C-alpha cells in the first residue's frame, strides 16, 4: 500500500519547467472515502500532471501513531510535498476545482498566484 504509485515520467513533454510532483495521500484502510480519494487523485494527476507526479499512499490504520507525527487529523488528506510549499487538501477529492486550487495547479479566482 505504501509503495509509490509512480506513473511514467512525462519525458514526451520535456518542458524545462517540468518537475516531479511528490504527493502523499493519507487514507484509512479501504474505506469508501479513501478509495474514492485514490481514484479521484489518479484521474486528476493524469489529466493535469501527466508523467509529472509520484503518489505515495499511507494507511493510518496500519500505523496510527503516524497521524500524530505527520499531524494528520482527517482523512483522506493529500499532502503536496514537492514542489514547496507544503499544501494539504482534505477530503475525498471529489471536488476537482478545489483540488486544483489546493495543489495550486490553477490560480484561485481573483486571488493572487
Amino acid at each position, binding site marked *: 500500500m505504501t509503495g509509490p504509485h509512480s506513473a511514467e515520467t512525462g519525458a514526451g513533454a520535456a518542458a524545462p519547467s517540468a518537475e516531479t510532483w511528490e504527493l502523499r495521500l493519507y487514507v484509512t484502510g479501504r474505506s469508501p*472515502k479513501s478509495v474514492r480519494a485514490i481514484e479521484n487523485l489518479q484521474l486528476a494527476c493524469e489529466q493535469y500532471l501527466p508523467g509529472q507526479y509520484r503518489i505515495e499512499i499511507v494507511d493510518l*490504520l496500519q500505523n496510527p501513531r503516524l497521524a*500524530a507525527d505527520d499531524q494528520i*487529523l482527517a482523512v483522506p488528506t493529500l499532502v503536496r510535498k514537492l514542489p514547496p510549499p507544503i499544501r*494539504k487538501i*482534505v*477530503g475525498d477529492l471529489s471536488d476537482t476545482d*478545489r483540488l486544483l486550487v489546493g495543489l495550486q495547479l490553477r490560480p484561485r479566482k481573483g486571488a493572487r498566484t
Partner: protein
Amino acid sequence: MASGHGRTDLTSVLDGAGGGPRLPKAPTGVRGLDEITGGGLPRGRSTLVTGGTGSGKTLLGLQFLVAGARDEGEPGVLVTFEESAEKVSANVASLGFDLDALQRDRLLVVHAFHIDPAEIVESGEFDFEPLFALLDDTIERIGAKRVVFDTVDVLFGAFPSQAIVRAELSRLFRWLEDRAVTGVVTGERGENGLTRHGIEEYVSDCVIVLDHRMHEEISTRRLRVVKYRGSVHGTNEYPFLISEHGFVVLPITSISLDYDAPEERLPTGVTRLDHMLAGGLFRGSTVLVSGMAGTGKSTLGAHLIDAACARGEKALLVLYEESPEQINRNMRSVGLDLGRWVEAGLLRMWAARPTAFGLEAQLAILARLIEEFGPAVAVLDGIASLMHGPTGLEVTSMLARQFDLLKAAGVTTMATTLTHQDESSTVAVSSLVDTWLLLRNVESDGERNRLLSVLKSRGSAHSNQAREFVLTDRGAELVDVYVGPAGVVTGSARLVREAQERGAERRRGEELMRRRRDLRRGIVEAEARLTVLQDDLAAERAELERIEMREQRQVADDEADRSALAAQRWADPASYGEGERP
C-alpha cells in the same frame, strides 16, 4: 438569600450522593469541585468545560488527567489542538505537574495537533478516522481511562465544513462512551450559547462553565456546574483560583453561624488593652481595628502575633498594603521582631495585593493557608485596600466569607482597616466582628496623638474609657488620658498637664505644711499661756486659802481673848452677857 441557598445545595449534594443508585464518578483532583459534584465527573462519559480565553479550561483538564494518572491509577491521554506537547509541559511545570515524568511512566500521552487553517483546502468529504485510530492505539497501549480534548473549537476553525466536524465530534463522544473512557472536552464560551459552536449538544452529561471577570481591575474567577445529568450538584457560582498548586475551587457561599464559642481569653500582647477588654480577646473571635492613617493599627496586629508566637502558637499575617519586608522593618522600629517568628516557622506572611489576585482568589488562598498552616491567630492587615476596586457589597460579602472561614477554623482574627473621616465604610464590616477597636488621631497643640477606645466587644465587659496609645521602642503601650475641662488631653499636652498637676500638688503640700506648722505653734503658745494662767490660778487659790486661814485664826484668837477677858471679869456666860448687853 443566595448565600443561604448555597449551603442547602451543598448539603443536598452530599446527602444525594449517599442515597439511591450512585452514578460512578471520576475524581478531578480539585477537591472543591469534587465536593460540588459529589465525587467528580461522570465516569465513562464526557464533560464539557467551557469558558473564555484564559479562564482555566486547559488547566482543569490537565489537572483531571494528572489526578487520574498520579492518584487514581487511571492513565490519560491529552489531545491538544492549541499548543505543542512541549509547551503544555512547560506551562504546567510551574504548577508542580511533571507531565514528562508521567509520560515516561506511561501514565500519560500527549498528542498535539497543530492545524493551520491557511494550509488546508477542503475537497469533498472527510472524517476524523486518524484521530479515532490514534486514540484507540493509545488507549490500548497505556490502558487509558481518561481523555481530554483541548479545545475542540479549533477544529471548527480549521475545517470549512462545519457539518462534518459536528458529526465527527458527536461520533467521537459516543465512541469514548463505548470504551468507558471519561472524557473532558474544553470549548470556547459563546456569545449566545454555552459554547461558540454548540458543542453542548453532543456533550450533555455534564457541563461546567468557567468565568473570568474583571471588575475595576480586580479579576475574579468563578466556576459553575450548569448541568450534571443523573446527579445532584451545587448550582451556585463558586470562586476558584489558579494557584501554584493548580486549580483550587472553594465551595463556600454561605455564612454559617454555628461556631464554637470558647470562653478562653487570648492576650492581645498589650497588657492594658487586655485589661480594657476584661482579660483579652475570646479565642476564635474576630476583632476589627479601624482608624485613620498612622494610628498604629498594624502595630496592634503585630502585638497580637508576637504574643501568639511567644506562646508557641502559629500566626498568619495577611498583608494587603505592605510587603513582608516593610512590615518587618516597621515593627522592628517599635521593638517587635516578627522576623524571628518567621524563621521559627511560627509566622507565615502573605502579601495579597487585591488587584493581583481578585477577591475570590484571595479567599481561596486564605482557605488553603488556614488548612495547610493551621494558625491560631490571623491578622488581616489593611482590608480597606480591598475597597478600592469592587463595589462595597462584594467586598463585604468577601470579608464575611473570610471571617467565616477563619472563625470556622477557630482562628482568632484581627482585621485592621483604614477609615477616613466618616466611619460609615467600616460599619458594614463591623457587624461581622465581635470586637471593634477604634484608633483615633487627636490633634492639638501642633501634634497628633493616638487614642484607643473599645467601640464594642460582644459578650464581654469592656472599658468605656479611651486610652492614649503610645508607640515606644518597646512596642505599644496604653496610657491613661487626662480628662480635663477642655476634654481629653494627650501627648505633650498631657505631659504638661501632668507637670502642672504635680506643681499644684506640691504647692498644696507646702501650704498644708505651713498651716500645720502655724497651728502647731498656736497650740504650743496656747498651752504656754494655759500654763501661765494655771500658775496664776494656783497662786491666787493659794493666796485665797492663806487669807481665809488667817481670818479663821483671827476669829479663834479673838474668841479666846474674849473668853480670857470674861473669865478675868467673872462675866456671865456669853449668852447671858449678851442678853444683858442691850
